[in-house]
């Protein structure tokens, strides 16, 4: 039965009418807003985009990548020569491909040494003036008066630099693999490939630690030069002086010749612990374990522990297990440095050019 329109209660009709009206007005508007929100990137990505562009166009980055690429070519060259001469150890024939990263004929350091030495420099170079330059140029207060959260700024800075670091390290690593294929003509096994990828990831984390540290300095110090120098000083301290100082200290409480096994063992372990406080040491141990599968242990082993062990290379899973604490330590150090940066930045007052 067809109910005539007028038989509907007046109120209901009005309500219907209003609903239709509001739908008509709101629908396109809301859709438009939604469409806009979906299609325009969030302020975070806008900053990341801009930062990436700035880094890639900067001379600084070009020079650094140039140095790193040259160093890597040098290390590959020396590795290839070493491989051609034959490294002697026929046991490790299975992992010949990984030798590209670790072997050296003695004229130049190998690839991992270069990465562990120069990687931090990339991190420092990308971060040391991230915040203080924005501050002194007066762009920080202008940017933060736009509708974005303050932490977007600092996380975007970090993300952009880390993306770039990852890009550089992975492209370097893959270029080395490609060159290796060319020169030694020996394809990697999936395990070797996995080891290299994990090694590259570790390198990204390690450089990320230095990046965060230099970001911290850039928030802490108003002068870019001060912040760069602090970063470089810390880098030199950890890569050069730390082991020297530890060795000096170690001499002072070295156990006597008549010391018992347990005494020597505890001494060795203390030494190892102090050494591992340095992220550079953590990184070196982790990468060596990853790229030299023959490494079976990172601490001192007693004869009892060695008895019955088969001197064969470790599978990837076991190598990973061995360096799991190292990876955790590196990630923790990087996160800690970022947390410090973040906290310091959030507490700072934003004024123009001060």
């Amino acid at each position, binding site marked *: 039965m067809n109910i005539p329109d007028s038989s509907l209660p007046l109120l209901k009709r009005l309500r219907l009418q209003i609903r239709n009206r509001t739908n008509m007005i709101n629908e396109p508007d809301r859709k438009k807003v939604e469409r*806009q*929100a979906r*299609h*325009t*990137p*969030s*302020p975070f990505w*806008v*900053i990341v*985009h*801009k930062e990436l562009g*700035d880094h890639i*166009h900067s001379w600084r980055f070009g020079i650094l990548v140039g140095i790193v690429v040259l160093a890597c070519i040098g290390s590959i060259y020396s590795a290839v020569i070493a491989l051609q001469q034959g490294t002697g150890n026929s046991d490790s024939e299975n992992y010949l491909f990984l030798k590209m990263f670790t072997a050296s004929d003695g004229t130049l350091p190998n690839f991992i040494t270069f990465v562990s030495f120069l990687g931090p420099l990339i991190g420092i170079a990308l971060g040391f003036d991230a915040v203080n330059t924005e501050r002194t*140029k*007066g*762009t*920080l*207060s*202008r*940017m*933060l*008066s*736009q*509708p*974005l*959260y303050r932490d977007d700024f600092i996380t975007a800075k970090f993300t952009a630099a880390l993306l770039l670091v990852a890009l550089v390290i992975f492209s370097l690593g893959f270029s080395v693999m490609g060159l290796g294929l060319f020169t030694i003509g020996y394809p990697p096994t999936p395990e070797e490939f996995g080891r290299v990828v994990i090694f590259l990831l570790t390198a990204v984390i390690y450089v990320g630690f230095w990046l965060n540290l230099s970001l911290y300095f850039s928030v802490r110090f108003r002068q870019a030069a001060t912040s760069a120098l602090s970063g470089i000083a810390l880098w030199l301290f950890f890569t050069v002086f730390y082991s020297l100082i530890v060795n000096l200290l170690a001499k002072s409480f070295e156990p006597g010749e008549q010391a018992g096994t347990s005494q020597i063992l505890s001494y060795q372990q203390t030494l190892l612990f102090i050494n591992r406080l340095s992220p550079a040491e953590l990184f070196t141990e982790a990468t060596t374990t990853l790229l030299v599968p023959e490494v079976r242990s990172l601490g001192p082993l007693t004869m009892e522990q060695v008895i019955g062990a088969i001197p064969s290379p470790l599978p990837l899973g076991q190598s990973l297990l061995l360096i799991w604490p190292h990876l955790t330590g590196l990630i923790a150090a990087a996160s800690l440095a970022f947390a410090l940066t973040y906290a310091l930045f959030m507490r700072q*007052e*934003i*004024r*123009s*050019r001060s």
Partner: protein
Amino acid sequence: MICEQTPTNQEPVIELSGLTKYYGNQRAVDDLYLTVRKGEVFGLLGPNGAGKTTTILMMLGLSEPTSGSAVVCGLDPVRSPLQVKRKVGYMPDDVGFYEDRTALDNLLFTAGLNQIPAGEARERAERLLETVGLAESARKKVGAFSRGMRQRLGLADVLIKKPEVIILDEPTLGIDPEGVRELLALIRSLSREDGITVLLSSHHLYQVQQICDRVGLFVQGRLLACGNIDELAESLNSSGTITVEMTVRNAPDHLTEDLFSIPGVSKVLADGLDSGKSDGSMNIQVICQADVTSSLARAAVQSGAELTAINRRTYGLDDIYHNYFEGSGRDEHTG
């Protein structure tokens, strides 16, 4: 000091009530009450270190007040800074840009941060560059820009988000007089044509008076006076004494006594009487409690002197400035 009297009944856009900010023990802003209404051009005047910038930062939620509250466009900047920043454009003093990017790129970046779609952003940026007279320099790097061009670009940068309120911190600092005139005219027309509320801070009284509907005098964190410039001068004139300056020629000796005998005159200062100027003229300054200028003139004429000039000195901006800012600190630490 409460500053709320306004001629229009427009809704308030900025309302500060009891706003206070301490840096350690130092008081930067002290119990500030201020209302700025829609469409108004309000000038915040004060010497360096008066707390102007601090006040502005608190309005934007970039700095938290120690006590009191600010309401901007009906929102609390402490609780919802993002919504406030969406509606308020802020140009910091000595605005900075990415120098190795072009003017257009800088504007597009700001537009991106405001989530304006790319096509619309470019359109708005080009139009704004036209408005501020930088259309030819749109594709030049900002590093090559002069100070005045930067400030104009700053204005375009502020306007790209179509704000309801713009806050300009020392917009005229370091620009040549012609540049200042152009910039202020631009700000004025924006306020008039688009109904944008403008709050600008400055320590250049003269520049600001040309375009401000109202001004607030701000010294050492306190708002000392507030109103339009005539009102301020009025309050200064009525509160104190009136000074009348006269120049007379061939004045008889008893003129000063005659003037002094007029009711309301408290002091007569004459010079030139003994110095004997060549034309026999002398300057007399009469300080009186009430406006008796006409009586003074009559007395002078009746005494037989030739009255060549008489002037009741009204307080100009300089006097306002001096009167209020006298003895106020010149330290620049919170400028």
